[in-house]
């Protein structure tokens, strides 16, 4: 078993879904250990958001947006650079509204050419990085670590830098992959002529819409033509320097191997459904095959296929067009950990944040929510911190100079001067000085309320407590405001009332300071000072009244609303998580439509039980910085909950997956027997042998000619599995080889390839050809953008022969 530097290029939506699945599988198998020699690249013309989920390990695939929004400009641009080499493109090309290549092959090819510099650069970089990584010590250490974690020593020669493997995967039904696949194969060869190029393409069903079948047949015809005429390809692309860049690596097939995959088996029965979704069984099967290939299956297969010409004679295409079918049996630790993490998110994280009766701290301590206690925390914060805010307002304005002037009677009419100082907003008056301190008061209030709210959130991890804290602050703020109103402080907007109040206070002060009692005690200065200070305090209250109103509005409209929004969002996250948990458990228990048979750890420990047990005692999940996660998950509310859920789930899942790994390996053969699943396993095996393409004549499937394997983590397990299954009589069961794949240890695989095929062997080839020819009569330039490379006589002869 060897691992090669490899690149998977997902073309179009189906390709993107396959790469997302590969990411997930690689995470399940490799965990957090990065293997940078395995690269994933997505080339997509339709990048509208869809439900592809990032595995907890994060996204490792790189995305190239190949969408060309302005087709007219792209045509004009390419025409200027490529001149006659661009004549293939219909100048009146219309792709319709929306993103993507519009199910037009010429559109897919046009976008490939238009975005070629980006695509080529991404391919080049990924392939070079992958090839470089294979010689790096870090890669060797990573693989050693992976072997060690499986209790094995890394065999010498596990890493094979001699040849890179590049997979191109997509569907031939749409416009993107069917329009790009030929050029893609040659572009890869242009970068590295030694690289093994493997094309894996989905073929639409015979009952698919005409456009899909027309595209598929056109792409198959092109693949066939360029396999038959290896010197025919004359593609010219636009280089990064905006000069024509012709293909220059000599005669070759577009791909060394082309795997055609459909949802039908060899008897034209529907087996694995194809849908444009992550869970689509056919997409999951292909992703599992590629993931297994990346982790060693390739070297096993290549060793077998190298001698294919001894078993499959005839034209080259019979050894190039292949088919495979894969079924697996696995203890689904990823799904179990996923379901369990969903349960933790729903019950522990969301449950605690949303609880109305108790809160749980990060340390896992639970306490009842006593509403008055929680409100008093808000009140205490206000009373403690507002003093500081207050001290920065009126009290910060110095009165000494004014006191001195009044005492020394520097002015003829001190009353007039004082009234001016306290009621005019002119420069250097006490009024203006106090007013200047006001804008920063609101910021300071917001700052301490916010800090208290964060502290409350950090401590209680509960929305109800946050709400009560804000209610406490708001209550105390309103009390302050009411008190000020009660002592006759007019609102900020009522300047006349304030002037009246200031005037009467000044008059009163001036009368008091002249009192005999005051003079006899020598208390004139303190009386003036205190009188002015009191007036300054009232002035601060008058001016701060509006600040308090704004602060109250901010708490009600902004902060409380924020808490309510988060709470609603959390409810949504909870419902997503609960629903997802239920879905996964149901799928594990009941769903047999996928390519993998899932078995639980033991008969007594069913999926439900294990999910439940794993989720219990995960109080450490409360340590997750939910507020930061909420802040980072931007976007509209409809998909925000989904993103928050995903982030929380991905934070929780690795730990749970780790716990499952630590629980030990599940002996699949033994569990099949124990859980009475042998019959079911034989069905899966039979389905693997039934291939995934309806063809006539049937494919060459002999284990001596093509890979036909039962693969498990070691030879003993694969043999044991084979022995277990063959206890049941399977009519017509062919011989299969048992193989070990230590790196792909989470699953046992039944893998069958079929060779000796060409497109005309497709069961419904006539129907595909007929609809293709009808369309060709109308718009050959739309359907056959590579037609100009084909010799007309040969094309005609080829079609006639078909």
């Amino acid at each position, binding site marked *: 078993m060897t691992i090669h530097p490899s690149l998977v290029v997902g073309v179009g939506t189906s390709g993107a879904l396959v790469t997302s699945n590969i990411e997930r599988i690689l995470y399940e198998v490799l965990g957090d250990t990065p293997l940078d020699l395995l690269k994933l690249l997505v080339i997509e013309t339709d990048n509208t958001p869809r439900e592809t989920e990032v595995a907890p390990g994060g996204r490792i695939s790189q995305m190239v947006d190949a969408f060309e929004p302005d087709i007219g400009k792209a045509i004009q641009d390419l025409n200027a650079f490529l001149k006659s080499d661009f004549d293939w493109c219909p100048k009146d090309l219309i792709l319709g509204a929306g993103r993507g290549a519009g199910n037009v092959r010429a559109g897919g090819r046009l976008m490939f050419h238009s975005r070629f510099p980006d695509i080529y650069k991404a391919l080049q970089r990924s392939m070079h990085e992958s090839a470089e990584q294979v010689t790096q010590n870090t890669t060797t250490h990573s693989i050693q670590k992976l072997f060690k974690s499986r209790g094995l020593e890394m065999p010498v020669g596990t890493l094979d830098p001699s040849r890179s493997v590049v997979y191109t995967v997509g569907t031939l039904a749409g416009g993107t992959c069917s329009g790009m696949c030929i050029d893609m194969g040659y572009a890869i060869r242009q970068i590295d002529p030694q690289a093994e190029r493997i094309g894996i393409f989905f073929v639409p069903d015979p009952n698919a819409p005409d456009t899909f079948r027309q595209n598929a047949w056109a792409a198959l015809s092109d693949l066939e033509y360029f396999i038959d005429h290896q010197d025919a390809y004359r593609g010219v692309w636009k280089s990064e320097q905006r000069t024509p860049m012709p293909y220059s690596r000599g005669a070759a097939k577009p791909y060394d191997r082309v795997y055609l995959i459909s949802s039908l088996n060899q008897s034209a029965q529907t087996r694995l459904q194809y849908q444009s979704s992550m869970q689509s069984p056919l997409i999951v099967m292909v992703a599992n095959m590629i993931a297994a290939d990346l982790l060693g299956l390739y070297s096993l297969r290549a060793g077998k296929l190298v001698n294919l010409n001894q078993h499959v004679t005839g034209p080259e295409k019979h050894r190039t067009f292949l088919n495979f079918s894969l079924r697996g049996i696995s203890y689904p630790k990823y799904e179990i950990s996923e379901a369990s993490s969903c349960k933790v998110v729903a019950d522990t994280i969301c449950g605690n944040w949303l609880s109305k009766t108790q809160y749980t701290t990060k340390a896992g301590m639970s306490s009842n929510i006593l509403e008055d206690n929680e409100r008093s925390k808000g009140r205490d914060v206000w009373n403690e911190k507002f003093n500081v805010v207050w001290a920065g307002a009126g009290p910060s304005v110095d009165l000494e100079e004014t006191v001195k002037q009044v005492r020394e009677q520097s002015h003829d009419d001190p009353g007039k001067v004082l009234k001016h100082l306290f009621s005019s907003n002119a420069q250097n008056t006490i009024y203006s000085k106090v007013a200047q301190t006001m804008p920063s008061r609101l910021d300071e209030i917001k700052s301490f309320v916010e800090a208290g709210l964060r502290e409350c959130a950090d401590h209680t991890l509960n929305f109800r407590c946050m709400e009560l804290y804000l209610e406490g602050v708001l*209550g105390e703020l*309103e*009390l302050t405001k*009411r*008190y000020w*109103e*009660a*002592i006759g402080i007019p609102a900020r907007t009522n300047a006349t009332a304030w002037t009246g109040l200031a005037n009467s206070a000044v008059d009163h002060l001036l009368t*008091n300071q002249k009192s005999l*009692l*005051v003079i*006899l*005690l*020598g*208390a004139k200065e*303190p*009386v003036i*000072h*205190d*009188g002015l200070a*009191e007036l300054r305090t009232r002035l601060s209250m008058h001016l701060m009244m509006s600040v308090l109103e704004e602060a109250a509005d901010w708490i009600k409209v902004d902060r409380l609303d924020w808490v309510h929004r988060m709470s609603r969002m959390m409810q949504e996250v909870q419902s997503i998580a609960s629903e997802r948990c239920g879905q996964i458990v149901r799928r594990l228990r009941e769903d047999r439509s996928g390519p993998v048979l899932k078995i639980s750890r033991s008969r007594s420990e069913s999926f439900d039980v294990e999910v439940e047990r794993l989720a219990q005692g995960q109080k450490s999940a409360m340590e997750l910085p939910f507020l930061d996660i909420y802040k980072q998950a931007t976007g509209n509310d409809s998909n925000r909950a989904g993103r928050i859920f995903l982030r929380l789930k991905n934070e929780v899942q690795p730990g749970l997956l780790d716990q499952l790994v630590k629980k030990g390996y599940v002996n699949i053969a033994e569990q099949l027997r124990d859980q009475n699943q042998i019959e079911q396993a034989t069905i899966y095996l039979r389905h693997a042998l039934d291939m995934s393409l309806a063809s006539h004549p049937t494919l060459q499937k002999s284990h001596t000619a093509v890979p036909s394997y039962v693969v498990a983590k070691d030879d003993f397990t694969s043999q044991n599995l084979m022995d277990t299954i063959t206890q049941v009589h399977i009519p017509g069961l062919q011989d299969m080889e048992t193989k070990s794949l230590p790196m792909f240890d989470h699953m046992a695989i039944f893998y069958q390839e079929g060779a000796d095929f060409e497109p005309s062997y497709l069961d419904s080839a006539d129907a595909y050809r007929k609809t293709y020819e009808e369309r060709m009569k109308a718009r050959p330039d739309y359907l056959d953008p590579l037609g100009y490379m084909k010799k007309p006589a040969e094309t005609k002869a080829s079609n006639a022969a078909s």
Partner: protein
Amino acid sequence: MNHLTPMAQQWYEPHAIVTFQDFLIAVAWLILPWVLLLWILAVVLHIMFPNNRAHYGAQAAVRLSYAWAAFWTGTILVIDVIVMLIFNDHFAGWTAIIPHTTMAFIAIIMSFIFWYNLREELRSSQVPLRKAQQGARA
């Protein structure tokens, strides 16, 4: 005889009061030291208790000083009467202490008025807070 001798005599050996005129003369001799005493005590108390200003404000501290000064002035007059009663040989009959008791009474009343006004002021300043709190509960 010194001009101020009757004033001093009024403190330690007051004459018996027979007529209203005697009473007015005796009060007149008593009122000057009474005022002096009140003022000195007020100044002393004002200086001795600076925290009153911090707690109640300068205006209230002034009033509080006068209240205490009036109280102690009255008390001093009462003590003087008691001392004269103890040393019976200076006691010229119950009528002799009428000016003392009158001035002591005035001092106590004055003290009470100062104190009462201050208390009312403090009480009324609590009303808005109570109202605000009642508003919160409502």
